[in-house]
């Protein structure tokens, strides 16, 4: 398979998507795959079901519109592309053509966060804020490439739209062992238990959060890492329980603008449910256009890398 740009670094997630779609294409003869010229992950589906594969070229708006038209007619369309363009260029089509009539269109894509070194044109950093604001939309952000397949399988029975955000990380880590956790849309995963502080995160920063928890464990600090991979609907009960069980100490870490993403979702639950916090910190992308660099360098530069996360947790624990 020819590899261009940075997609080659996402090989395992790509193959999971490709294999899963090809498998689902067989069991669902109304499954369609559409893309605006981002087809590398989709070769297997395209070869098996060419008549249900549509590449519209560089045209995100019509790509989502066509998906909606297919869904109106009883089909299950999956739109695959780069999220900075799908989430913004086609935002109105997603909102008005997909979410308004509540159609089962799946939007799945890469480049969520400061990943891929394409510069700010190519980073989707506001996408979760945009998607979470849409009525009827279910919003997910997946770190573990193996989880993508499970989410896609579950999505086949959903009656409304779904957004699946992926990164293009170099550290394309398989975070969870097979069968280690029940994966269910709408339910968070306690990736590591702990009592002192809860570190809520999603997507590509889950593995960073686990590394941070490891480092602090050596100091005798017990960090609970919670993967809230479904941002909408948010797992309120899990948030309530974690706040209660870790002394009201909360840190949110995400590869998204720090206001409008998961931190805001968690803060909404805290306010709406009247939860008592002892300390709260949010780590994410500040209000800047981030520039170039590899993923880790950019996270470090913008204050939500590994070291910054360790420091934030120490502050929250009063030991910083």
């Amino acid at each position, binding site marked *: 398979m020819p590899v261009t740009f940075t997609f080659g670094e996402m090989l395992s997630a790509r193959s999971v998507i490709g294999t899963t779609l090809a498998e689902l294409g067989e069991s669902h003869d109304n499954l369609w795959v559409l893309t605006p010229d981002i087809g590398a992950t989709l070769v297997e589906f395209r070869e098996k079901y060419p008549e249900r594969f549509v590449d519209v070229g560089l045209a995100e708006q*019509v790509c989502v519109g066509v998906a909606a038209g297919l869904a109106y007619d009883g089909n299950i369309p999956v739109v695959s592309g780069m999220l900075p363009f799908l989430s913004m260029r086609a935002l109105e089509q997603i909102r008005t053509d997909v979410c308004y009539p*509540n159609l089962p269109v799946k939007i799945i894509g890469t480049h969520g966060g400061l990943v891929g070194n394409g510069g700010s044109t190519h980073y989707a950093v506001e996408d979760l804020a945009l998607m979470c604001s849409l009525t009827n939309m279910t919003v997910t952000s997946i770190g573990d490439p193996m989880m993508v397949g499970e989410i896609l399988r579950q999505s086949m029975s959903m009656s409304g739209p779904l957004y699946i955000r992926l990164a293009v990380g170099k550290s394309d880590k398989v975070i969870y062992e097979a069968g280690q956790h029940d994966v269910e849309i709408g339910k968070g995963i306690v990736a590591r238990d702990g009592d002192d502080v809860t570190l809520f995160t999603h997507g590509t920063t889950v593995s960073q959060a686990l590394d941070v928890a490891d480092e602090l464990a050596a100091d005798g600090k017990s960090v609970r890492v919670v993967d809230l991979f479904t941002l909408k609907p948010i797992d309120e009960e899990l948030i309530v329980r974690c706040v209660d069980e870790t002394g009201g100490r909360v840190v949110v870490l995400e590869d998204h603008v720090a206001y409008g993403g998961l931190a805001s979702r968690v803060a909404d639950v805290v306010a709406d449910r009247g939860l008592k916090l002892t300390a709260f910190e949010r780590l994410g992308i500040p209000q800047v256009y981030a520039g170039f660099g590899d993923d880790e360098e950019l996270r470090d530069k913008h204050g939500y890398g590994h070291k910054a996360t360790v420091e934030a947790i120490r502050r929250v624990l009063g030991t910083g």
Partner: protein
Amino acid sequence: MSRSTPTTAGANSVESLEALAFELRSKLLELCGTYEGAVHIGGDLSVADILVALYHYGLNVDPADIASPERDRFILSKGHAAVCMYIAMAMRGFFSYDDIVDTYGQLDSAYGMHPCKVQLPGVECSTGSLGHGLPLAVGMALSARHRGEAHRVFTLMGDGETGEGSVWEAVMAARSNELGNMVAIIDRNRQLMTSFAEERVVFEPYPDKWRAFGWNVVEVDGHDMTELVTAIDELPEPSSRIPTVIIAETVKGKGVDFMERNLAWHAGSLGAEDLEKARASLSSGHQGETA
């Protein structure tokens, strides 16, 4: 592929279609006189003949079976002409005209300024934001083609609407996917909301633009029922590979002299006195035509 037998509407004569168009315009004026808010009367009147030609002649649809897989699909991409579509559909038996007049635009009414499929089954798509209909049509046409269904997918757009870039994305996608089961109809009334189109945007040479994108172009007088019916009769088979656009030359406000080509009548409501004048103008024009 053969088309299934059209329902009885297809048997309408040009004369009876013209009478239906007069009835549709009369009902539009009545609603414009009773509803307190603004009605998009200018663009409603410019598509009245087209909607009659579709719902009472060309479209293979059945009010008693709105989910039939074989039905032709119709997308009102210029969603602001919703009330004209509602009434044309009511006259075909889809809805009750009295319900439309009694509830239009009111809280919890299914009949709103722009059509909503969720609230009003029978309408194919929720539209209103311009430039969204043709991409939806491409999806529906692909689905029909894939399933071996012989129906067509019609989309009605305003010419001003084709300033939206997404229209041309869909124009390319329809041609690239060889969707001869797609028919776009352009309400070429040459007016935008606030100006005459050519003053702001160079549309001409308009039919050539469509030809350049590889579409089959048919040009008609959008108020001449014979030409509309002929264009529908001569559509290529849905199994063909080239999509068709019918560019219908129209007059915004058609049928009411003081509304025709008048920028003040993009939308509005009619007081009792204006309603009488409008009715008189409509009647005299209609009598002139039928004389």
